[in-house]
């Protein structure tokens, strides 16, 4: 059997121009009485992909999921599943199943009956149902709880019942609405990997809605960052983090320094950005930014080096300031350096040695420096 890692390594249908999208949102808009939840959104999801919709609450991610499940009807636009238009098909005829945030386990049915519910609706023969239920119970490690009712289960067990119930029908697509939201932190981390294994084993397409970045980054092949009913960026977790497409995405995922400025000059693919107070930043691989453009230079705190001594001669990006604030977090220390031009920059340093011979502390003078390819230039 191939390892999970090797499958995921080579899995990138979105880069293949021949690949046909499995789920396709085409110019979908959903308006409620007083606000627009989803605004002219287009998005493609591929077969067997683990896809995450990430955004703050109210960004439209749940509405998108509910439209796919059939609980909401798009105001305009189309949703295609495997090439077929889903409009007009009620939820109970769609080959997608959903795992609800509240789990929505039927309180008056046993675990067994909950899992069998969807199979019964299809008119599956009794023996086949029993077999499938047994298989699902085994998969979810719930064999000894088969006769229990939902209120007799712990939170983690309920979550597994909900999952088993939603995959029992072998849906083409499994929709997961904040699947781990109700679990405590430890259980959540363990379950993330279980979900990934399950997705691989069953060969299903997963679409998961979450507001938890770490969860999305861990599990998803690709993430769509949503805001105000629109997709801000769709990319792999690494691309989202290292090459955000806009100030919003850079700021939304992880921690970032956004230094505003103008493109002063451009040579080939490299640019020099000058900030308001005249500080110059040299950037390689700077993308499309033309001279004179208002841009932001985005750099993650861990890519900035902090030191009490000036960096070696000839270092392109080096600035001086003082330690304004610092937070010791154990594995790393986060510095807030107030530069001489007044800007405050966050920088984090890994505490790789137990005792530092050159500890920086409040009000110390400090240098920050970073490589020309450590950050990105954002025009949006």
């Amino acid at each position, binding site marked *: 059997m191939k390892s999970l890692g090797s499958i995921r390594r080579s899995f990138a249908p979105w880069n293949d121009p021949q690949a046909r999208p499995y789920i396709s949102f085409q110019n979908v808009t959903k308006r409620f009485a007083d606000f627009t939840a989803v605004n002219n959104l287009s998005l493609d999801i591929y077969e067997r992909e683990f896809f995450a919709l990430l955004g703050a609450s109210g960004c439209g991610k749940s509405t998108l999921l509910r439209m796919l*499940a*059939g*609980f909401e009807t798009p105001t305009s636009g189309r949703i295609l599943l495997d090439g077929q238009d889903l409009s007009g098909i*009620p*939820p*109970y*005829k*769609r080959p*997608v*199943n*959903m795992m*609800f*945030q*509240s789990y*929505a*386990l*039927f*309180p*008056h049915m046993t675990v067994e009956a909950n899992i069998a*519910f*969807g199979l019964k*609706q*299809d008119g599956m023969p009794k023996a086949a149902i029993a077999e499938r239920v047994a298989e699902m119970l085994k998969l979810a490690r719930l064999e000894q709880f088969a006769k*229990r*009712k939902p*209120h*007799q*289960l*712990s939170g983690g*067990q309920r979550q597994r019942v909900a999952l088993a*119930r*939603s995959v029992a*029908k072998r849906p083409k697509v499994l929709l997961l609405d904040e699947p781990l939201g109700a679990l405590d932190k430890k259980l959540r981390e363990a379950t993330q990997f279980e979900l990934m294994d399950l997705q691989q084993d069953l060969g299903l397409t997963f679409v998961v809605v979450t507001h938890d970045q770490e969860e999305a980054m861990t599990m998803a092949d690709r993430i769509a960052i949503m805001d105000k009913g629109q997709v801000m960026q769709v990319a792999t977790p690494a691309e989202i983090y290292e090459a955000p497409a806009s100030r919003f995405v850079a700021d939304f995922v992880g921690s970032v320094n956004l230094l505003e400025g103008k493109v002063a000059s451009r040579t080939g693919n490299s640019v020099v950005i000058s900030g308001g107070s005249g500080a110059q930043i040299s950037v390689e691989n700077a993308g499309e930014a033309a001279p004179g453009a208002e841009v932001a230079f985005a750099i993650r705190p861990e890519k900035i080096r902090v030191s009490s001594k000036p960096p070696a001669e000839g270092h392109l990006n080096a600035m001086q300031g003082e330690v304004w604030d610092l937070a010791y977090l154990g594995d790393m220390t986060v510095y807030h350096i107030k530069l001489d031009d007044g800007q405050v920059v966050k920088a984090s340093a890994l505490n790789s040695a137990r005792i530092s011979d050159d500890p920086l502390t409040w009000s110390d003078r400090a240098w920050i420096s970073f490589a020309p390819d450590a950050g990105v230039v954002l025009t949006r």
Partner: protein
Amino acid sequence: MQGQLSRFNIVALVLGFSFLYLPIVLLVIYSFNESRLVTVWGGFSTRWYSSLFSNRLLLDAAWVTARVAFVSATVATVLGTLAALALTRYTRFRGRFLFSGMVFAPLVMPEVITGLSLLLLFVAIGLDRGFLTIVLAHITFSMCFVAVVVQSRLISFDRSLEEAAMDLGATPFRTFIHVTLPVIMPAVVSGWMLAFTLSLDDLVIASFASGPGATTLPMRIYSQVRLGVTPEINAVCTLLIAVVTVGVLAAAIVNKRRDIQRQRDEQVAQRG
């Protein structure tokens, strides 16, 4: 929250509940009075109870009342549950305002008006007054109470249960039968009980709606009460109180037990 009741609160509770219960307790006590004079204690006796069972008029009336209450409560529960569903599930349809008005108005409508208007309807359409008209009248006003009880349960109902059922392939009708109805069943049952006792207790509406040959127990009691207080009526009333109290308490105990069992289950589940 706060564990201890202040003295003021204790006094308020003791006085309030004495006011609520003393008259009923006295009525029950004096139903066991040997003396024919209701307010003079003449020793313990159950003679009024035995004389009840030879009172044909009362027994007939009780039988009519029981049948009316059973039929009207059952139909009212169906209609009231439908009305509650319509009000909670369909936030906009033509005439919804009028509909919700018609559901809530009977709760506070003076009984004389309801009774009079129904009677005039029955006369206008030429329906002979009797068992059927009492049942129709009772259904009409008690379905609204059922609707309110069921509606309050439906408001707190987790809609994602229904969505889950439909997501798993159940049509809306099957979803209702297999998921919604079982979950709201306790409210439907208490709605039925409420409708039953409302019908059992009603005097005014039944007086308007009934005709010769259909006399309910409250009507019979009323006509005797007008003639004065007698130990025999005390006995009837005591029996009625006993029936209702036993019913309500039994339901409450069953519910309480279920809750306790549930809590215990949940604790066990949390531990492992």
